[in-house]
């Protein structure tokens, strides 16, 4: 029923956009990579909507929240703080190597040992299996960004990757249920992202940077 090849292509490109969002040291380019990923996930939801028309509503909402509002918010606050990311804990070269290792490990392991993770038989087959592996990989990359980046805006981009990963697994694991669209819409984190960016802008006003290492007033 589903266009398997299209689903797998869109899904696998999500890994590339995640890497670009994490590794790009220019925050605007990282936002662009995130925006492309948001469009990809909208495309994926639309592809699944063939079998469940309720998903069209989620695709429309995701387009607005993920691909329009979130990038707009990110660009708006990046405009105030400057495009260049605060130097990360790990240098560019080692970070690319580390990201590649995370990618290979999480994709390889989840794809190979999908039975430990897949809640249904369908999820262990074809495009569903690929999507589950991609989802875990994007989730791992999002966590990596949050843990390894000193720039507060980059950690927000990491958070957005986590959300996309969860939504990819949601649409792949239960595409035929009517409630799935509602679940997807209800769990959009755009308000949290807006609030985090608002607080980060306040921090920048106070300490002149978005470097989380400079946030050192509170210890233990």
């Amino acid at each position, binding site marked *: 029923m589903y266009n398997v090849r299209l689903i797998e292509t869109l899904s696998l490109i999500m890994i590339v956009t995640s890497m670009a969002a994490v590794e790009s040291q220019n925050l605007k380019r990282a936002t662009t990579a995130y925006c492309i990923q948001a469009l990809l996930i909208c495309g994926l939801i639309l592809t699944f909507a063939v079998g469940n028309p309720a998903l069209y509503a989620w695709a429309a909402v995701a387009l607005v929240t993920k691909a329009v509002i979130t990038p707009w918010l990110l660009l708006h606050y990046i405009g105030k703080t400057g495009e260049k990311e605060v130097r990360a804990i790990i240098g560019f070269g080692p970070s690319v190597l580390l990201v590649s290792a995370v990618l290979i490990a999480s994709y390889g392991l989840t794809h190979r040992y999908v*039975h*430990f*993770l*897949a*809640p*249904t038989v369908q*999820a262990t087959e074809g495009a569903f299996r690929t999507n589950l592996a991609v989802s875990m990989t994007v*989730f791992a990359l999002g*966590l990596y960004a*949050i843990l390894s980046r000193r720039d*507060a805006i980059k*950690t*927000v981009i990491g*958070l957005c990757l*986590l*959300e996309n990963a*969860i939504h990819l*697994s*949601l649409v792949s*694991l*239960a595409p*035929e*249920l009517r*409630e799935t669209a*509602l*679940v997807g819409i*209800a*769990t959009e*984190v755009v*308000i*949290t992202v807006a*609030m*985090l960016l608002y*607080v*980060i802008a*306040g*921090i920048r006003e*106070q*300490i002149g940077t978005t470097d*989380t290492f400079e*946030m050192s*007033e*509170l210890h*233990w």
Partner: protein
Amino acid sequence: MPEVPSLLPLAICVVPAVLAILAYPLARLSRPLGPVLNLLGAGAALVLSVLLMVHAVQGRVLVSLSRELRADALSALLVLAISGVALATAIYAFPYMRLQPLLDRVSHAAGEDVTRRRLAGFYALSLAFLTTMLWACLTNNIIMLYVAVEASTIASGLLVAFYWDRRSLEAAYKYLLLLTVGIAFALFGCVLLYASAAPYISGEGGVRGMLITDLAQVAVHIRPGIALLIISFFIVGFGTKAGIAPFHPWLPDAHAEAPSTISALLSGVMIKMAIYALARTLLIFFPVAAYSPVSLFLIVLAAFTMLLGGVMCLAQDDLKRMLAYSSVSQIGYIVLGIGLAGVGFGHSAGYLGGYGGLFHLLNHALCKATLFLAVGAIIYCMAGTRRMSELGGLARRMPVTAVMFFIAAFAISGMPPFNGFWSKLTLYLAAAKAELWWALAIAVLTSVLTLIAFIRAGYLVFWNDGNGQANEIEVRDAPLAMAIPMGILAALCVVIGLYPQLVHPLLDPAARVLASVF
């Protein structure tokens, strides 16, 4: 348990929500309206919660909106605790939010007009925060449980950043980021659970994929490996929100930097709401015996949390951070109770653990709210000073606050004749009955550490005359409207301590839900 359709659970969510929407514009129009609406919202929630509790005590489970909202005895207990503490903080907020040092701190950072806007926002967000906590404890929908818990983070994020200075913003950033990342794990767990139940979901009139009660019916079909993964995600996700170690680093910062009324809500009830969410989601799986290692893991986490919180509590000089670490430690006791309920699931040992955990949940809500309100009074009567090393000799100048502080401090340390003694004793007995001697030893040791930490704090703040700034500042005790809510909460600590059987009708059915003993 018979389910009775009722509008009561819906009303408990809707009334404060409507007032939250009205609060901002009305408080902007007239400044005194903000605290009045806050009081109305919390007061109405408490009245409705008492009515809900009456139904729960009589063995009825109320449901609204086609079982989307469901209030059993466990929900009713949490809702009562949340609205009770919210009412105390709403009364306290009347004088507290008008204190000059507080207003100076805000206007110093923002200016007069922004201060007015921020105060209006404070009351609107306080009511929204209350609504989200009540909603989380009443929803029967697994996804809405996630949404309500996340919404409570959103509603309280700006309250943590209320002063909008370097410290509060830093705390708010950590609070929002760590809790959202943590809760993302819970969402992943919810999605996996939802998808796992999908094959067993029948459309019309059958099992519905998002209702917790319906998921519990099909949980037996979920493969144990996947179930353990889901449970792990729930423990990380809701455990982060609850402040369970090692997911707790946001807690001392947020609880210490927020205004004291919000600290009382965060420490007094919000972390309990997260414990409720964890218990409610774990209950979906618990009829299956294969999950008893999960309970043991929870007990290990609880012991680690207790001990870490207790040790860190001793190392603090900042009074509010000390209270925050004490909350980490006391959450450990509550998780110990939940874990013991799981270990002895379906038996009297499990019931005793669940009973002790819920009793301590209720007691900690009362004690910690009292302590944060007392410390709030000290800080602002002392022009913002909150370092114990800079305070001293306040016993004579703030006798009422001192009495409240010591009642709550001894209660939380598990000293007789206060309420904390009974809940800790119940937990010790449950641990002994489960033959978990190491957990019992750590629980007793942590109680001793807590007592030492509070005696040290009490001595430095109230008696130690030598190094106090109190000698230089003209200090008056807390005004009546601040003393009354502290007094009511402290009096409850004493009354429950002297007559613990008073709360038995509330705790017994809730513990039966938790340990599934019927």
